[in-house]
């Protein structure tokens, strides 16, 4: 006779998921300090750029977009991890999503915060960023509403607002619980943030309805945001940018890198916070399959894009094509193909090889590959404009490297702080479940 696996009681779930909020190991603080020191280095680099001007970067004519725009597209892409994946899984009522969604939603908010900084850094005169906002002013200048750059601003502001609310709503019941037993400052914080939640059926009804509605709305926003980001490129007639598939191509790439980021964060949190009973092999297996699917889709879109260019044989497009396939950008291009397609295909496609460790290795590769993909979209096209005599080369400086590294470290700092303030898994959503055998 089959015996059912022992079930985790609710009290243990609560204790396990609230425990990481208190205290902090030496390893935790060392990681925070190391990441913060890189963030400080990035701030120093940025302050030098503000003092001396954009000349300290490798940006030049005709390559006037470089690392900053690459980073912007990359981070906005990763932001699709959370809200989009969480919304899809919530709407399809996938039961396995519950331990995954909050980790994913937090990624979205932090990535948007980081990604949203890059247009400001890229402006050079960052203190004038508010000129982007349409308001009547004595200069009698209004932003050009037809510019995809302004569309970007509106789209990202909408996405940030939606994502913060989407993260905040399911946190309310957990914060109400945390407000009951805690040290005074935390108790005050959680009580304020939980808005006096009592757990009545009216509140639960409203919360569930709001979450369902928000999931629908956020899906529509997420798809539009990365489409608008792609239009920053596709609306110009630059070679290999002016493409109708750029919208879906960017969305696919965004979800692809987003899932990779989510797997990486989940794997790290599982070990660091001792959540082995909650983030199980089952979750990694499902997300690995999704990552593999997105890898295949990404390959399909990339192949379709390059095949069309090659077949068209249009000289200015072929100059960009050649620079990527066999020119100065070839090492990056083939590394991208290896990281985004070969590695996930082997590690995640062969069932025997698909483990938590290989899923994390594949995720790291995908993140590297997707950053390179963004770089290969930006730099080669600008370096090979239609007027061949204006061709140029982009060589980034340490300032750009430092600011890029700082954003990755900034992400680590934000996530570590978040995991100490809020439960990384929604306790109220997490019903008692059988313990999974590893």
């Amino acid at each position, binding site marked *: 006779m089959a015996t059912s696996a022992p079930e985790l009681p609710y009290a243990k779930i609560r204790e396990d998921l609230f425990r990481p909020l208190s205290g902090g190991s030496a390893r935790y603080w060392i990681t925070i300090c190391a990441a913060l020191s890189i963030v400080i280095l990035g701030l120093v680099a940025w302050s030098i750029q503000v003092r001396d001007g954009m000349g300290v970067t490798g940006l030049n004519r005709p390559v006037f977009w470089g690392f900053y725009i690459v980073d912007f597209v990359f981070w906005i892409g990763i932001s699709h991890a959370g809200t989009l994946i969480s919304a899809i899984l919530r709407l399809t009522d996938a039961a396995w999503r519950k331990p995954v969604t909050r980790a994913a939603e937090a990624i979205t908010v932090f990535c948007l915060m980081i990604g949203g900084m890059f247009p400001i850094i890229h402006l050079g005169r960052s203190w004038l960023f508010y000129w982007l906002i349409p308001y009547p002013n004595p200069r009698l200048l209004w932003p050009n509403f037809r510019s995809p750059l302004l569309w970007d601003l*509106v789209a990202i502001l*909408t996405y940030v607002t939606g994502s913060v609310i989407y993260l905040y709503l399911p946190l309310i019941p957990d914060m109400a619980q945390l407000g009951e037993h805690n040290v005074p400052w935390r108790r005050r914080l959680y009580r304020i943030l939980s808005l006096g939640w*009592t*757990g009545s*059926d009216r509140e639960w*009804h*409203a919360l569930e309805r709001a979450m369902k*509605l928000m999931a629908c*709305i956020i899906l529509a926003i997420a798809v539009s945001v990365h489409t608008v980001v792609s239009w920053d490129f596709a609306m110009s007639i630059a070679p290999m940018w002016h493409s109708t598939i750029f919208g879906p191509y960017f969305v696919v790439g965004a979800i692809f890198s987003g899932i990779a980021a989510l797997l990486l964060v989940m794997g790290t949190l599982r070990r660091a916070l001792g959540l082995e009973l909650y983030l199980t092999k089952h979750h990694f297996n499902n997300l690995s399959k999704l990552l593999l699917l997105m890898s295949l889709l990404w390959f399909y879109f990339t192949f379709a894009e390059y095949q069309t260019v090659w077949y068209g044989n249009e000289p200015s497009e072929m100059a960009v094509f050649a620079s990527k396939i066999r020119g100065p950008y070839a090492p990056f291009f083939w590394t991208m193909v290896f990281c985004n397609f070969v590695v996930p295909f082997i590690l995640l496609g062969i069932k025997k090889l698909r483990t938590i460790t290989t899923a994390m290795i594949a995720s790291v590769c995908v993140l590297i590959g997707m950053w390179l993909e963004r770089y290969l979209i930006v730099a080669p096209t600008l370096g090979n404009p239609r007027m061949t005599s204006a061709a140029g080369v982009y060589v980034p400086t340490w300032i750009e490297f430092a600011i890029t590294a700082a954003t990755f470290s900034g992400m680590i700092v934000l996530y570590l702080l978040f995991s100490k303030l809020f439960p990384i898994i929604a306790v109220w959503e997490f019903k008692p479940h059988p313990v999974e055998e590893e």
Partner: protein
Amino acid sequence: MADFREQSKLEAAILALKAAGIDADDMDVFSEEPVEFRRGILDRPSRMSLVAVLGAITTGGLATAGVFAAQHNYRLITGGMPVFSFWGTGVITYETTMLGSVLATFGWFLWESGLLRKRDHNIPVPTVLPGVMCLRVRCSDPHVTRVRQILDSAGATDTVRKEVA
């Protein structure tokens, strides 16, 4: 206030109270996780979807009108092309429409859940243990005995009477 450990008993209590003339608005169920009732037990009608749509239309419409007004007041040189075009404004209209629905949904959630409204702090709120559902019934003095009988016969594990201060 009465504690229940089984949802079926709680549902039976609610139905019996409704049959005894207690209004659904005078009943609240408190729990640490959402309790899903069958239709007709304790329905809470909502206008959240409608509000989200209205919010979307309002914000999207206002933003589009704002862009229209701005473009006509500060004319850009467009080389003979129309100053205002839906193709050029479509993204802004779309995004602000979505923003409107997000804000309206959130605002209505706060209103409908009662979190935003001024509370009557005199009404007691139970402390609920994990796995327990607490039914709070508001009724006047003459009905207390009857309500208590219904709750006890439905299988409440702990029934407490609390006066509104």
